[in-house]
């Protein structure tokens, strides 16, 4: 049986990718940020999963206004880094896990979540920057990655509650897969940021840290917070934080609450790492590693 071993949460700022790609990580501006991920890179080496299920948002890259799926799962064998306007990032291609991805799609759709199945797409900084932060600059990523894109660009976007419930459904799907695989689920993007208009540059440290506190201790309560609170308090792009609730919903300690399921075990969760930093370009950066124990 496949099992979710841990969840990782991190912001995914394009400028962070540029700083890595251009060798600027030790510059005074960037050094404090990358220091916050030193533990994480070692932790990744010590806790290498068999598959990463990576929840992120596409930034007008794979999905134009021609078509915008609310939830899209990548079932391809590989995904190439996209040209977002500066040329593609010089990072390894992403190797998928088509069999597990298809299995999850099948199971999650049967649990009443409408996923769009994507057999061909390119992936942008939303997916590649978290991999760089957690894995550094290897010749190949340490394991296959299943991309899971969430629409947080065109409103209405999915609610925190729906994302949290989706995480529970993904957990059930993973646990019904026959092979013994260690799966990490990552929720990426988010923390205070507003990229547009006269309010650009908004940072609300109190809101961000309260979110981290509650994501750890009371994820069900955090799931009920409406979008408008994220947008008003953390900026128009702060709404990306709902994606963290997908990863959180897949953890052991909330499994007993899964809709229409009987709890088979009520586990608990350990915080391995927590980090927060302002600024990276226009945004605050938050990061958390939670393990199932």
């Amino acid at each position, binding site marked *: 049986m496949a099992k979710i071993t841990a969840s990782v949460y991190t912001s995914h700022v394009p400028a962070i990718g540029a700083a890595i790609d251009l060798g600027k990580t030790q510059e005074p501006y960037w050094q404090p940020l990358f220091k916050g991920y030193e533990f994480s890179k070692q932790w990744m080496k010590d806790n290498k999963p068999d598959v990463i299920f990576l929840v992120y948002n596409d930034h007008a890259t794979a999905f134009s*206004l021609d078509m915008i799926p609310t939830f899209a799962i990548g079932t391809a064998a590989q995904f190439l880094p996209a040209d977002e306007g500066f040329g593609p990032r010089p990072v390894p291609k992403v190797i998928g896990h088509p069999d597990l991805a298809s299995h999850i799609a099948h199971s999650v759709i049967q649990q009443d979540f409408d996923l769009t199945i994507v057999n061909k797409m390119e992936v942008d900084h939303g997916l590649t920057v978290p991999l760089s932060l957690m894995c550094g600059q290897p010749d190949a990523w340490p394991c296959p990655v299943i991309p899971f894109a969430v629409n947080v660009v065109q409103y209405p976007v999915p609610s925190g509650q729906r994302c949290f419930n989706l995480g529970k459904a993904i957990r059930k799907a993973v646990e019904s897969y026959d092979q013994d695989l260690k799966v990490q689920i990552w929720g990426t993007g988010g923390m205070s940021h507003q990229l547009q*208009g006269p309010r650009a540059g908004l940072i609300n440290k109190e809101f961000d840290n309260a979110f981290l506190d509650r994501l750890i201790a009371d994820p069900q309560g955090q799931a009920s917070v409406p979008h408008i609170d994220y947008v008003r308090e953390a900026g128009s792009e702060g709404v990306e934080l709902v994606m963290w609730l997908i990863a959180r919903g897949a953890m052991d300690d909330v499994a007993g609450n899964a809709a229409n399921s009987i709890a088979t075990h009520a586990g608990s969760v350990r915080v391995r790492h927590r980090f927060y930093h302002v600024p990276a370009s226009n945004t605050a950066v938050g990061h958390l590693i939670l393990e199932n124990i």
Partner: protein
Amino acid sequence: MALDKPYKDIPGTIIFDADQSRKGYHLNQFCMSLMKAENRERFKRDQRAYLDEWPMSEEQKQAVLDMDLNRAMALGGNIYFLAKIGATHGKSFQQMAGSMTGMSEEEYRAMMLAGGRSIEGNRHLGEDGDAQPQHQPQGQAGRKASV
């Protein structure tokens, strides 16, 4: 029954909903075309000619030519799409976001290094924070432009 759109009263913010998406469809699809290097070259060579290939309004085209991102947003643009125009011109995301505040690049960067814009007074229209309409444009660059 009216749709629930509680995000209309946030200062300095245009939420990209289905109405905006419809209004900005061609503008945003033009932006998507700049993900190809050869299109970026063609656009830079003759911006007007390239824009004329798209069924955009004259106002939308002018906003692109002026790099007036606030105007482009009001006309249906989305910041993630518009960012590709900036990338084509070699501008960072921070430069683009900063340009929408009326601050100079240095002023905006300094604000971010000092912890960013405060939420106080910037939650609802009608408060008195720096993102409110009565305080635009912000910073030296904007004041010079408006003289």
